[in-house]
């Protein structure tokens, strides 16, 4: 079973979101389940700082040996920071998906919707593995 921290929210696109409780700046990454399914991540493209994103938009991509996947904005808002360390060393997505492997921070506008609880995400991924 993949590691699914209790203090995060999730999306059906296998992203995690932290900081939802204070409702201001949220940190986004991809889950350990997704990182494991992708294999060794070799390239990460993150959105530009300052860009406005709408929930559901493709805002970047994660490329592994065998495949490439879009990164979707899980919420609407403004990109305020991106993780340059993961751009330089994409293997952080595999080695520390919920920590050093974070992708970007977004200042939330409006209310987030359709996010999954850890239990819901666990149910989603147990059906796929």
């Amino acid at each position, binding site marked *: 079973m993949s590691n699914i921290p209790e203090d995060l929210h999730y999306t059906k696109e296998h992203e995690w979101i932290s900081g939802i409780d204070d409702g201001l700046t949220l940190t986004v990454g991809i889950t350990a389940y997704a990182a*494991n*399914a992708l*294999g*060794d991540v*070799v*390239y990460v*493209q993150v959105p530009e700082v300052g860009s406005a994103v709408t929930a559901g938009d493709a805002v970047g991509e994660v*490329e592994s*040996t*065998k495949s*490439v996947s879009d990164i979707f904005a899980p919420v609407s808002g403004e990109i305020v920071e991106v993780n340059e360390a993961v751009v330089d060393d994409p293997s952080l997505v*595999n080695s520390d998906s919920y920590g050093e492997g974070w992708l970007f921070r977004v200042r939330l506008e409006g209310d987030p919707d359709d996010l999954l609880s850890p239990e819901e995400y666990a149910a989603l991924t147990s059906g796929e593995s």
Partner: protein
Amino acid sequence: MSRPTPLRGVHEALGATLTDFAGWLMPLRYGSESAEHNAVRQAAGLFDLSHMGEIFVTGPQAGQALDHALVGYISALEPGRARYTMIVDPRGGVLDDLIVYRLADEEFMVVANASNYPRVAAELTERAGTFDAAVEDRSERYALVAVQGPKARAILGELTEADLDNLKYYAGLPATVAGREALIARTGYTGEDGFELFVAAQDAEPLWAALTKAGEPYGLLPAGLSARDTLRLEAGMPLYGNELSAELTPFDAGLGRVVRFDKPGDFVGRQALEPLKDVPPTRRLVGLIATGRRVPRHGYPVVLSDGGAVVGEVTSGAPSQTLGRPIAMAYVDNDLSTGLAVDIRGSHEPVEVVELPFYRRKK
């Protein structure tokens, strides 16, 4: 449901990520595919290739039957030697690429790709019909395990008395390995020295266990299909379904040398292929090295940097561990070698054209 190989239990115990490949349940990777790739380049890797097909052609006219059925001059093979060859349709389109081993004067083993071997067995049966030769698909009975890499010779040497030093590249030797009967072939699909071991299906697990144990001090890792694909791509080796298909002749793929017009008798495809032998094809298979970090992949268009006209198509692409850059093989219009880009999901990423292979081992 995908078919498991005789080593499925081993793969599951190792925690492999399993994937469907050509109808078979195969290990994609055991841990990090990059580590598996590097192990093969620097030490050794252990592969389950039991999805490959083994078709035996036997009888007094087995060699002539294969000369007729395939593009190679198979009857000229010495017993104990092997040859890379192809089977084509009457239009010259490639139905599969093969390795044929001459095991004895009247016994040949044709090794075919997993996706193609039922078709290959059917074609061989039909094409051998007028010869005194029997065709039998024995794929179900065999497992195939490969040990590949600079340490492969030392590792296998721990488990057999066979004279490995005198076993040439593209040769096969029946021998005992870890107490089991095996055909040891010095062949591979990684660009490294290595061996492919054909054994009875029930011997696959003990053989795998013995190789794992013997390989441990040498840094041997089990390696999945993901590493196998990046290794063969660096070595510039074609993959059926990517670089080869029924829509392409051996000449289109730059592999016209496998077609032996000098052999006696007619063969399937001769009439279609003969006029092509001196005609340069309109596209050629080249290597591409991306200057950026995005990876050109199968099916992406190759375009002119200036203007964006489509001038080719990527057949295989992956990040290269050895070069540290994304690499690809592509069919590109003949006269072009500069000013090219690959259309990677809408943006044109510059690429450098190089001759294949990307990687050649130091002898």
